[in-house]
């Protein structure tokens, strides 16, 4: 197990480097909500609010963590291959992202656990480059206008889950909200240039950098009224994000610093799992956050929408048949439909994801490696003026360790 933990940490270290770009639809406003569940949940469409499993804990609903009996570490990462199109053409981008790292520690085994982690909720990462010309003096200046938007909002949840009675579990978490958003515009003025190729006109650089800080709380519950059905619920009340904005132009002494507050609307998550015949079970999650209640950035608020996500999926659970081979592996299928928190091109952005996945237990059932493949269509050429097709491979590692 120690070896698996070491591998997990190594993975976390080596892959925690965001690179490349995501969909251009994330080039404005609050950014794209990330699928920050583990690969097990992503494989079945993203549902995971109503699960409890002492050997394979889920962190989507912290109330489910009451069941852990060993220290649980979970790390998730994914690689995207996105093809985006708009009126200007098509662009293929790739990136690796590590949206989720979690730990849960049992305090009273099977009843009380505490948890912490690092979860990226939203991300925006894309860059554009447009060939441009400017006329000044007798020169026709040629170059590019380059725009880069890069940032994320993340939280550090510090929480606890407690099961007061059999079939009931409650959780509470304090989320330290943090994040940055950096927008950079370059007017790269390449020509005319000197004989050695040094541009005669210096490049413009305008940088706006926002730093977010805040706290929020999340309360969760997991209910199992009957053996075959589980319900999960989580509620995050509205909270404020303090924003420190710095605006600067390269080469100019003046810096503009502003501070303002973003009011984030409350968020509700609910989920249900129904055990079907044999190893199969059917689950679904719903997420709702009405960003029409958002305030603090007038430009963003004008385009805000109600964000909601519906996740549905089937899972064939693991089996333990001797010589069962591949038939013992879990099998997951799912679909997720999401409406983004803001409009693009005057219309809501719809994102539909189809996914499938499986998993591989570690020796002695001390953890599991889960993988998922998913395909997403984001946006619509007619409605939004652009769309992206995203092929994603997700991987997550869960490790269990008896520390005491």
């Amino acid at each position: 197990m120690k070896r698996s933990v070491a591998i997990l940490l190594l993975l976390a270290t080596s892959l925690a480097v965001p690179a490349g770009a995501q969909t251009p639809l994330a080039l404005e406003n609050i950014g794209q909500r990330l699928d920050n569940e583990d690969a097990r949940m992503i494989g079945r469409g993203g549902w995971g609010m109503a699960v409890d499993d002492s050997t394979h804990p889920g962190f989507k609903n912290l109330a489910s963590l009451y069941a852990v009996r060993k220290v649980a570490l979970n790390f998730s990462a994914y690689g995207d291959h996105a093809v985006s199109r708009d009126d200007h053409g098509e662009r293929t981008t790739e990136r690796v992202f590590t949206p989720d790292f979690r730990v849960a520690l049992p305090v009273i085994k099977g009843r009380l656990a505490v948890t912490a982690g690092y979860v990226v909720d939203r991300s925006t990462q894309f860059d554009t480059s447009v060939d441009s010309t400017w006329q000044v003096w007798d020169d026709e200046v040629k170059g590019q206008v380059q725009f880069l938007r890069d940032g994320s909002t993340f939280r550090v949840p510090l929480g606890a889950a407690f099961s007061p009675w059999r079939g009931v579990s409650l959780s509470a978490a304090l989320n330290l909200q943090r994040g940055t958003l950096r927008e950079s515009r370059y007017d790269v003025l390449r020509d005319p240039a000197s004989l050695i190729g040094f541009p005669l006109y210096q490049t413009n650089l305008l940088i706006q950098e926002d730093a977010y800080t805040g706290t929020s709380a999340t309360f969760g519950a997991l209910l199992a009224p009957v053996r075959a059905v589980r319900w999960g619920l989580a509620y995050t009340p509205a909270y404020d994000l303090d924003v420190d904005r710095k605006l600067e132009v390269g080469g100019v002494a003046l810096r503009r610093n502003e501070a303002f507050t973003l009011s984030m609307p409350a968020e509700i998550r609910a989920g249900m799992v129904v055990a079907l015949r044999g190893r199969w079970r059917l689950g679904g999650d719903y997420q709702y956050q009405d960003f029409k209640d958002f305030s603090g950035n007038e430009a963003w608020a004008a385009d805000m929408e109600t964000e909601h996500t519906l996740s549905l999926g089937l899972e064939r659970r693991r089996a333990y048949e001797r010589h069962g081979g591949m038939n013992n592996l879990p099998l997951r299928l799912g679909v997720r439909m999401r409406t983004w928190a803001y409009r693009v091109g005057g219309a809501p952005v719809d994102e539909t994801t189809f996914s499938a996945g499986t998993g591989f237990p570690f020796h002695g059932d001390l953890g599991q490696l889960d993988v998922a493949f998913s395909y997403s269509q984001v946006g619509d050429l007619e409605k939004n003026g652009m769309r992206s097709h995203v092929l994603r491979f997700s991987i997550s590692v869960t490790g269990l360790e008896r520390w005491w």
Partner: protein
Amino acid sequence: MGRIPDRTTRPTARLILAAVGLLWLATVAGCTSDDPSAVGSSLGDLGFDLVLQPLNADQDAGFAALSIEDPDIPVNRQEVLYLGEQGGTSSSILVNFDFTDIFSEDFPESLFTDQNIKSVRLSLTKLKFYGTAVVDSSDTTGNVTSGVTNIYYSVRMLDAPFDTTAFPGPVPPDQGVELVKGPVDVVYGNEPLIPLYKEDFLAWLAEGGTRGFIISAAAGSDPGLVGFASRELDSYNELADVAVGTVVAPNFVVDFDSEDVNFLMPPVADTSTFDAIGPVPENPDDRFVLRTGLRSYPVLRFDFSGLPAHAFINRAVLAVTNDTTASFGNFHSLVISELPVDLYTTPADTLTLAELGDAAYVVTGQTSLDPTFNRDIRFDVTQAVQRMVNQVYEGERALVMTAGEDFAPLYDQGSLDPEFYFSQFDFLGFAAPDSLRPHLEITYSLSDSLVTGGNGGGQ
């Protein structure tokens, strides 16, 4: 929740899957993405409100013509002696010779007789630059149409040996008698030998003591300042090839009947007089001047009131027009530096070279500029203007134009300092037509969001 240990999935299958997954992650780690393109460019609202705006700053906001002195190298210690007149500057050459006890084993007193001396001449060594005639490139015949080629040398004895510390200054009185063996005629070449009367020389020998002489360009000489080697000359590369043993400073050359070797008599002191120094305008309306030799450097300040605050300077070019018909001298580097205006108290102040070097912040420069050829001269002063606009300094700053001084090593080519050659760039002043007057062509960009805020924030 207890589980039966799972032994049904082969470890190799898990390893293979993990390897495939990691390979996928590595593949899509961003390095294979297409380069940024216009895709998505309709989104993203961060921008400049004004991009590449032109501003022509051509109004004088405070000009100065600074005289720069180097106390370590007064005129009498300069490596070059100047003769002639150009641009309002005129100079003669003064030399002191000591006739006391000049004899030696090789040249005993017995040699110095009227019968044995064949000739006595005064030798000068012209700098290579002045010995080379300038061919007017517009003259397709290739004839020499300009340049200092003809000098009628005049040599007279001063009333007394000259004071080496008195120059630049008026020409000391002389005895009025022409010492050149007549008729005074043009002497060509890089090493002119001016014939003198041997009787005069023998008389000076007989009397002994130190005597001063003035060498000047007589009427009929081509106009122009011509440089000759002084006794301080170290920069022998500036001379044409000379014979081994040549004394390059002004010296008497005595040719004997009885000897194969000439007697050479170097001076004990020499100097240029610079008895008249060309005017350096303090008012830059008509023209302004950059001069080497006796350094005078112009300081330019422009009116930036047309430039919005907090603009980013994409380019700023200082453009000046050199009047090639009035300028003269050798090739020089021209360097633009920032200079605090409180360094000088009057527009015609005098600074030491060290004071200038300590205060100047070099911005840019150009090398090998020919004062008689390079007409339109432009300097990229973008960084300097940006600093001035940013007000990063306490107090105001101006742009000073200098030659390639030691404090600007990038433009200080070769081993010669600017006092070596006496050259002058005459630039057209602020009253000249638009494109000819000194001006700054400023190109700037402005972000209104930076100045006034309101870029989508919550304020």
